[in-house]
C-alpha cells in the first residue's frame, strides 16, 4: 500500500474497529452517505450499514449525551463533531457526566466514549471552525485528550482510544488532514495513550509540541540541535518523557497554537520548573497564539505561531 493521509488513516482505524467489534457505533452529522464533511467516514455507512454508522439530527449536546448512556450500557460510541467550535454545546455532558461517572459511582458505571473532532487553524474556513480548545479538556479530570500528528499515529492512537476504558477527546489537526502522507501498516497495531514520542532527537533544546505545530516546530529547528517531543496524549501527560529530555538539554520551548493564557504550555512549563529546575540553563519559553479569538481566513496565518516566531524562541533560549 502506498502512502496515505491522516483522513485515510483515521478512516482505516474506524473501519478496522467497526469490523473487529460489533458494539462499535459511529455517530455524527453527515457521516453516513456524505462520509462526513472531511470525508473521514467515507464508505463506512455502505460497508457497515446505517445502524452502525449513524447519521444523527443536528444535535451536538444530544449526540454526546446519548453516547454516555450507550457507553455506560456497554457499547462503544465514537462521536464525530464536525468542528471543534461546535463541541461547546456538549461540554456540560462531557464535564458534568462523562468525566465523572466513574468517580461518582466508585467504578460501577463508566462512560468510555470517544469524541472525535477536527481542530485548529489552517483551512481558511468560516468563523468557529478553527478552534484549538484542548486546554479546556485537559483541565477536566477524568477525560483523556489525544492529538495525532502523523498518519501512522492517527490510526494507532484512534484504535487505542476506541479500546480505552475512559472518555477520550480525539482532536484531529484539520490542517494536516491531507497535507502529509506516510506509509501506514494495514495490520492491527495500536499506539499507546499516555506516551509521548521523540520525533527528532537532539541535545540543546527540548521542544514539546503536538498536531500541526509539531511539524512547524520541526521545520523551524533547522540549524538548532532540538529534541522534538510529539506529546500525542495531552492528558494524561507523559511527564517522564518531558522531564527526561529536559534533564538532557536543559532548555524547554513549548509550541501550541491555542491562546497562551492558561494553555497547556503553562502546565508543561510548571511541571518542568517544579521537577527539573536544577537542570535548566535558560527560561522556559512558550510560543503560542495571542490572547485573542481565532481570526477569520485573512488573518489566520498571523495568529498561528510561524517558523520565524518559533526560531526566535530557539535563539533566545540558546543565547541566554
Amino acid at each position, binding site marked *: 500500500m502506498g502512502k496515505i493521509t491522516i483522513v485515510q488513516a483515521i478512516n482505516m482505524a474506524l473501519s478496522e474497529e467497526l469490523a473487529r467489534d460489533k458494539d462499535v457505533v459511529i455517530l455524527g452529522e453527515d457521516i453516513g452517505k456524505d462520509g462526513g464533511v472531511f470525508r473521514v467516514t467515507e464508505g463506512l455507512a455502505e460497508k457497515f450499514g446505517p445502524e452502525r454508522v449513524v447519521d444523527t*439530527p443536528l444535535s451536538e449536546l444530544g449526540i454526546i449525551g*446519548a453516547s454516555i*448512556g450507550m457507553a455506560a450500557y456497554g457499547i462503544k460510541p465514537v462521536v464525530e463533531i464536525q468542528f471543534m467550535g461546535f463541541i461547546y454545546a456538549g461540554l*456540560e455532558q462531557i464535564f458534568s457526566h462523562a468525566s465523572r*461517572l466513574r468517580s*461518582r459511582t466508585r467504578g460501577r458505571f*463508566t462512560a468510555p466514549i470517544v469524541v472525535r473532532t477536527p481542530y485548529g487553524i489552517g483551512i481558511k474556513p468560516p468563523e468557529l471552525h478553527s478552534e484549538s480548545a484542548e486546554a479546556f479538556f485537559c483541565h477536566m479530570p477524568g477525560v483523556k485528550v489525544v492529538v495525532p500528528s502523523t498518519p501512522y499515529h492517527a490510526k494507532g492512537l484512534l484504535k487505542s482510544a476506541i479500546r480505552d476504558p475512559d472518555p477520550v477527546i480525539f482532536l484531529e489537526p484539520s490542517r494536516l488532514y491531507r497535507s502529509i502522507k506516510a506509509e501506514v501498516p494495514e495490520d492491527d497495531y495500536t499506539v499507546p495513550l499516555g506516551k509521548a514520542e521523540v520525533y527528532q532527537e537532539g541535545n540543546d533544546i527540548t521542544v514539546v509540541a503536538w498536531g500541526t505545530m509539531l511539524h512547524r516546530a520541526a521545520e523551524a529547528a533547522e540549524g538548532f540541535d532540538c529534541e522534538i517531543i510529539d506529546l500525542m496524549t495531552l492528558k*494524561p501527560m507523559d511527564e*517522564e518523557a518531558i522531564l527526561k529530555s529536559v534533564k538532557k538539554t536543559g532548555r524547554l520551548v513549548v509550541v501550541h497554537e491555542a491562546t497562551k493564557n492558561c494553555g497547556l504550555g503553562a502546565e508543561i512549563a510548571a511541571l518542568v520548573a517544579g521537577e527539573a529546575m536544577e537542570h535548566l540553563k535558560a527560561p522556559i519559553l512558550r510560543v503560542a497564539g495571542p490572547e485573542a479569538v481565532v481570526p477569520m481566513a485573512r488573518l489566520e496565518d498571523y495568529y498561528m505561531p510561524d517558523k520565524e516566531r518559533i526560531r526566535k524562541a530557539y535563539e533566545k533560549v540558546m543565547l541566554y
Partner: protein
Amino acid sequence: MPKDVIERFELEFLQIINEQGVFDSALLPPFKDPDFKKIFETMVLVRTFNQRALSLQREGRIGTYASILGQEASQIGSALALEDGDWIFPSFRESGVFISRGYPMWMLYRYWMGDERGMKAPEGMNIFPMSVPVGTHLPHATGAAFAMKHRGDKKVAAVYFGDGGSSRGDFHEALNLAGVFKAPVIFLLQNNQWAISVPRARQSAAKTLAQRAFGYGVPGIQVDGNDLMAVYSATKEAVDRARRGDGPTLIECYTYRLDDHTTSDDASRYRNKEDVEEWRKKEPMIRFRLFLEKKGLWTKEYEEDVLRKALEAVDREIEAAEKYPAPDPADIIRYTNSELTQTQKRELEELGWEK
C-alpha cells in the same frame, strides 16, 4: 386556496382512582389484593424514609436532602411498571424510585451524608447515579435505549425529571433523538408545579407539558400523578410499547411538591399556604388508603402495623449508614480514571494518601 388541516393532536388525561378513592374498575390494572397491600406498604416505607431523612438533616446527621413528599404515586407507580434489568436514570428527587426498585436505603442515606459510595449501585441493579444538574441526564437514557436496541435486548430505559428540567435543551435533544432512533425509553416528567420558586406557568406557555411529545412524533399522555394506579397503567403501556420496539413515550405526571425544594429552601417565601393545603388534601396516600378501604383491604391496625415495621426497617438502615466506615481520601483520586496517571501517582505520594 383554503388551508387544509394536515394534522390533529389529542391529548388524553388518565385518572383511575379519584380523590375520594372511587375507582374505575375497567381501567384498574389487574393486581391481586396482596399486590395492592404491598404497594401501600411501599408507599409507607418510602414516606418513612423521606420523613426520617428530613429529621436527620435537621439533626445534622445528613446534608441537604430533596424531599419527595407528595410525589410517591408518581415515583412508585412508574417504577413498579419496570422490570429488573431495565435501566433507570433518576434526578436528585427520586427516593421513591430507588426504594421501589429495591435500592438499599442505607446507601441512599450514605449518599446524602456526602459519600459517593452511596451511588455505587449494587451489581445487576441498573440505576444511574442521581443527576444533580437538572435535566442533563435525559440524553443518557436515550443513549442507553439506543444501545439496548443495538444489542437486541428487550429492555427499556426510564428517565425521571421535572417541570423545570423540561425547559432545558437537553429535554428537546433527548426526546428528538429518541423519536428519530425509535429508542425504547420512557420519559417520566413529574410536573410537581415548582422548580424551586418558579411556578409551572413560568416554565412553558404550553397548556400541558405532555403535549410537547407531539412535536417529536412521540406519544404523550398526562396522568394524575397522585393516582398511583393511573401512573402505573400509563407507564406499563409505555413500557410495553417500548419493549415491542415501538419507541419512546412522554408521560407527564401531574403532581405537587408538598415540601420545600430541599432542606436548604423555604417555600413560604414564594407560595401561599392555602394552595399547599389544597394540594395536601389530594396527596397520593390519602387516596390510596381510601381505595384500599373501599376494597376492604385497610384497617387502622393494619396501617399502624405497617408503619411500625417501616420505622424499624428505616432505623436499621440509618444505623447501617452511620456505622459504615469512613471513606478513604485516596478514593478522591483513585476512581478518576481506569488507571492512575503519572500525575496522580505523584499527587498521591505528595498528599501522603497512598498506603
